[in-house]
């Protein structure tokens, strides 16, 4: 069993929701990311999404776009990220999920990515611009160690829910709103209805992301999902403390603790 599945199993016994922070690897440097991952794990994160920075992140709002730019300017690439994961695996068993755009993986070579990811201890892949019908290769992975996490949106019909359920392993990533990533003041009004619809066709854990930034929102989502993903709100704390590593870690840790407490 992979670390993601194991974690959801443990949380289910406690009737607890997973808190899943997203940070962009290499923002502002891979050394910072290493320290941030340890901080996130210590502060209550149950698993972590590491974004692979990309030049044209079309599912992302300004906050993550800028994080991507900072990471690319610092010279971050996939090889560096794999080395980072290998270093982290000497220190922590927290599930680590790579989230990146398809072209990064395609250009690197899909077989090579999978071998490398398994070797260094990555637990899952999320590729927001790769729907299941374009991802025969990813589906073959269902037998391997990596969790293949596909996304569903409120616009997905029943047929697509079935397709994504069948292709996914670990959990399904439910996009809470029609839009790009980034903090919003309100949750989408049809979110509960959407999650209920998915639940009718899937037994996989459901993690909800996009637009969730406050403890209140996280608590509300946690009532209907097994996982809550928060990205941009955490990246804002990183951005506000680019020159002060200690303050960065403290601020991020504080926010993550608040968010995890809200959904516990």
């Amino acid at each position, binding site marked *: 069993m992979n670390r993601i599945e194991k974690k959801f199993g443990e949380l289910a016994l406690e009737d607890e929701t997973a808190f899943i922070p997203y940070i962009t690897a290499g923002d502002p440097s891979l050394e910072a990311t290493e320290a941030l991952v340890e901080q996130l794990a210590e502060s209550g994160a149950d698993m972590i999404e590491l974004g692979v920075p990309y030049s*044209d992140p079309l*599912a992302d709002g300004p906050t993550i776009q800028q994080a991507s730019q900072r990471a*690319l300017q610092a010279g971050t690439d996939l090889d560096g990220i794999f080395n980072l994961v290998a270093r982290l695996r000497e220190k922590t068993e927290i599930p680590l999920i790579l989230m990146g755009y398809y072209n990064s993986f395609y*250009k690197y070579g899909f077989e090579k990515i999978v071998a490398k990811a398994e070797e260094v201890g990555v637990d899952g892949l999320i590729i927001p611009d790769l729907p299941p*019908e374009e991802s025969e290769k990813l589906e073959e992975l269902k037998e391997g160690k990596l969790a293949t996490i596909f996304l569903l*949106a409120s*616009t997905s*019909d029943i047929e697509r829910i079935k397709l*994504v359920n069948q292709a996914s392993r670990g959990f399904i990533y439910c996009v809470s709103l*029609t839009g790009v990533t980034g903090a919003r003041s309100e949750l989408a009004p049809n979110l509960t209805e959407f999650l209920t619809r998915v639940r009718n066709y899937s037994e996989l854990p459901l993690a909800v992301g996009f637009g969730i930034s406050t403890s209140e929102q996280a608590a509300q989502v946690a009532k209907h999902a097994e996982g809550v993903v928060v990205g941009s709100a955490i990246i804002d704390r990183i951005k506000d403390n680019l020159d002060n590593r200690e303050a960065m870690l403290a601020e991020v840790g504080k926010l993550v603790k608040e968010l995890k407490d809200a959904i516990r």
Partner: protein
Amino acid sequence: MKGYYGEFGGRYVPETLIAALDELEAAYRKYKDDPDFNKELDSYLSDYVGRETPLYYAERLTKELGGAKIYLKREDLNHTGAHKVNNTIGQILLAKRMGKERIIAETGAGQHGVATATAAAIFDLDCEIYMGLEDIERQSLNVFRMRLLGAEVVPVTSGSQTLKDATNEAIRDWVTNVEHTHYIIGSVVGPHPYPEIVRDFQAVIGEEAREQILELEGKLPDYLVACVGGGSNAIGLFHPFFADDEVNFVGVEAAGRGLETGEHAASLTAGSTGVLHGAMSYILQDDYGQIIPAHSISAGLDYPGVGPEHSYYQDSQRAEYVAVTDEEALEGFQLLSEVEGIIPALESAHAVAYLRELAPQLDSEQIIIFNLSGRGDKDVQAIAKELEVEL
């Protein structure tokens, strides 16, 4: 596989958009051969756009270059000054039937933005055009035209601030407002079914040209030549000749400051396969798949990708793709202006530059049809600056 040209194409987009692409495809299949739809489209194309456009024998250019007879397909004579309007009128008629209230588009040179704003104006739809800040500065005339037509021009300041980034921003808008908004992509790029829809609306160019040349010369041409950025004018000319094996296709890309400098927009000639804006195709990228910003003197060709069907044409050797530099394009621009009294768009001027190479290699019995995809009024200011002329 669905939406593929060989191994190119597909729908590499966030899940949120899949439903909208399905809806668009269903609407397109429904209306594509619908007599009422086509009657309305044809009437706008003839009475509003001014089709059919002439196929003009460029006698002086033919003499000047020596060799093959050169015909110009005069897309520059369309309303709004380029071929772009063929597609925007078609897509807006679809959007109307799908009940969409709002139109968005990306634009590089501004020609597609103007054509979209025009179509939105006659059909009374809200219209927002995404345009890179760098393009806004070099195409200020078109920005003003769009505003006159009632569209809002949204400056894009992310990335390289050109067409690639305007397209990213338009896709982000579409993901957000997908229920009531239709995104009119301006070229044969993007996720399926866009490359097919845009091609079919542009195929009127090649359909007319085929009939016209048979009428004028009693035979098919030997070569079709068109400039390629995303590739819509080229596909529009080429596609109706696809089964005519004796007709050679040449697409002319922008070599910018020279292929060897790395500052160019020649995705087919000098790129590699990858995914950009939802489709697998040839793109400009580094070893880690990061997109490399394109460079071209012409904003309309300044794009690091190309339509998937062109990638298929290249790999299957149905078409040949070449690239000409900024400097050569400027010479082409001046050549057509001086010899034929036609000021071409800088995009089309790239193809003119290549004619200088191709025509003399052929004999006088042979025929080239060159797609004059747009007129150059929009470029005059930029060219004056380039030639260091004070206006």
